[in-house]
């Protein structure tokens, strides 16, 4: 037994001497607690709801008052008036709206004539959590509208009778398809983390970089070399997961050439952003323990707030702030648009632009921090 003490002593001494290890063992579980604890099951808020009022009659007012009450209190959605139904639905398809409420012409008249007018609710069912929340809110609005109500005095009047009819804008989307964009982004991140983080620092600490530094290679050539190699690896792994995962998840018309071309564009932009991010983090690191230690923390901190597994609209404000600056968010959004919604450039331009800006800023800072010496 005494000999076992030797091993115990050595391991404990090393553990308490490494601040990186100590911090990470404490930080990782806490980060997971806070992030995962807030990532799932929050109330959906601030979904952009297009409201197309084709009636303009007086009986619409009680319905609009109910909408405003929800917007002011539960804040599930923010109503935005649209004059044109086509415009609203186009906005829904390109992701600018989360749902569209269509109040038909003659709603007021039909209501008074007890002809059971139907209000249309078109939901973006690529996000089942958002769609479900909106449907829930409207079911309860319809229920309230249809309750017998009392006017001043004593007369009980029969309630006006209206119905909400929900339409899903896309065919049924199982959760695995919802999750796929996050998996592709994760594949790119892991490649960046292993290639640009762990292997890069291992080579550095083994002195392999010293072999580069005694040759006439310039700092620019070195940085370009590391980044391009990283991006090529990221694109290979991202594309593989995209295609294999797409087939497993059963994405319709996966091999549409336009879609593949646009997907490649998002993969490339995501790869560049994540590799540059990693290069920035590692510019001054030389301890091989560091990239391994921060791997788990970064993964939790970037993946879950990105909207990959649950909609961002359900997060508390501080976590939405992380989402805003997290390159993962735009990668996931871009992939989700192309895989589950419209195959078009316009809805992903913003994602591409933000990923591009991220790349430029991180690369500039990283190149400045990177030293072409030992």
């Amino acid at each position, binding site marked *: 037994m005494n000999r076992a003490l030797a091993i115990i002593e050595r391991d404990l001494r090393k553990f308490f001497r490494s601040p990186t290890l100590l911090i990470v063992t404490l930080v990782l579980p806490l980060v997971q607690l806070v992030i995962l604890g807030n990532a799932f099951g929050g109330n959906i808020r601030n979904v952009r709801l297009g409201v197309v009022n084709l009636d303009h009659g007086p009986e619409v007012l009680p319905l609009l008052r109910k909408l405003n009450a929800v917007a002011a209190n539960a804040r599930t959605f923010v109503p935005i008036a649209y004059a044109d139904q086509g415009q609203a639905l186009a906005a829904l398809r390109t992701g600018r709206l989360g749902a569209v409420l269509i109040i038909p012409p003659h709603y007021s008249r039909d209501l008074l004539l007890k002809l059971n007018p139907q209000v249309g609710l078109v939901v973006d069912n690529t996000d089942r959590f958002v769609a479900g929340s909106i449907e829930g809110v409207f079911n309860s609005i319809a229920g309230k509208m249809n309750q017998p109500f009392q006017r001043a005095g004593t007369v009980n009047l029969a309630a006006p009778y209206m119905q909400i009819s929900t339409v899903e804008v896309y065919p049924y989307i199982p959760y695995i398809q919802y999750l796929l964009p996050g998996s592709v982004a994760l594949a790119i991140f892991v490649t960046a983390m292993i290639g640009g983080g762990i292997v890069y620092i291992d080579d550095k600490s083994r*002195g*392999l970089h010293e*072999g*580069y530094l*005694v040759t006439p290679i310039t700092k620019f050539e070195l940085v370009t070399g590391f980044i391009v190699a990283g991006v090529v690896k990221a694109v290979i792994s991202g594309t593989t997961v995209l295609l294999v995962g797409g087939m497993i998840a059963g994405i319709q018309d996966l091999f549409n050439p336009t879609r593949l071309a646009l997907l490649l564009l998002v993969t490339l932009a995501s790869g560049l952003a994540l590799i540059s991010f990693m290069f920035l983090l590692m510019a001054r690191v030389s301890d091989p323990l560091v990239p391994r230690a921060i791997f788990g923390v970064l993964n939790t901190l970037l993946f879950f707030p990105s909207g990959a597994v649950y909609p961002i609209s359900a997060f508390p404000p501080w976590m939405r702030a992380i989402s805003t600056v997290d390159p993962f968010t735009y990668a996931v959004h871009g992939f989700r648009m192309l895989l589950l919604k419209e195959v078009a450039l316009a809805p992903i331009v913003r994602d591409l632009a933000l990923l591009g800006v991220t790349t430029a800023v991180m690369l500039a800072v990283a190149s400045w921090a990177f030293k072409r*010496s*030992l």
Partner: protein
Amino acid sequence: MTNLQPTTPRAGPTGIVVRHIVKKFGELAAVDDVSFEVRAGEIFGLLGPNGAGKSTLIRILTTLIEPSAGGATVAGHDIVRAADAVRKSIGVIPQNMTSDPDLTCEENLTIHARLYGISGSRRREIARELLESVQLGKWAKAYARTLSGGMRRRLEIARGLVHQPRILFLDEPTTGLDPVSRISVWEMISHLRERQGLTLFLTTHYMDEADRLCDRLAIVDRGKIVVLDTPAALKASVPGASVIETRLAPDLPEGASELEALPGVRRVQVQGEALYRIFCDDGPIAAQSLMERVQARQARVQTLSIQSTSLDDVFVHFTGRGMSEAESGPPRGGRVGRTAPF
């Protein structure tokens, strides 16, 4: 600098000129005002214990770090202002192996050649020639990690030569190698000097290595050059042609002074209790009279060895300490077999 032998500066465009280089890490001066010149075509060595500042100096000369003060030209180019020109003219074999274990020997060379902008077909040609010349031709397709230490070091040497440098730097080329591998690396280095105009600059903490390879040699200790000359001249500068190491039991009553009185003895160093190092003109004669004196004193010689002066003695002579005292590194090389227990 002390004891710098006057040399005729003939450092042409392929030599090295070092002027008052200082490198400080915080308060500690790892290299402390060092100046010397390396002539074109010679094998120049820096000999000293671990931590003497050899590696720091080689890193400064190979542009990996900048000096705190002073300067140097390598192959005629300033190491700070014209670092790129220096990098183009030198090959470097660092102390830590920098060939990639996960690449084949050939890949290691062709990729390194690419760093110097050598064209595609030429790269493979060079790689094949060089691997052949370091006797790794059969191993071209083997992963570097499968090579033995000596083979790996030869691969590193080949890698340092892909761009036909004019000066080759080798930082402790045989540290950690077994005796057979060391000899094969030494032969390789001796062959290299036959390449026309190739200047070699190496560091080592092995006395026998410096003695065997170097045309000229600077002994460094604590960041300074202690002495610089040819190995032969350095050995000649130590008084006495032979060294006797002996342990007596019991010690002589008057100790060292009694030994100094023996015929032909120049100097006696006390190495420990009854352990002496005797510098003398003729080893066997001095040993003979030592035995007689010891017997006359009713004492006994426990161990005795006679050697001709080595660079170890030079180091001891100029620094007042043995190499093994100056560091806590590996044992002194090549001396073990010559000490006969008595």
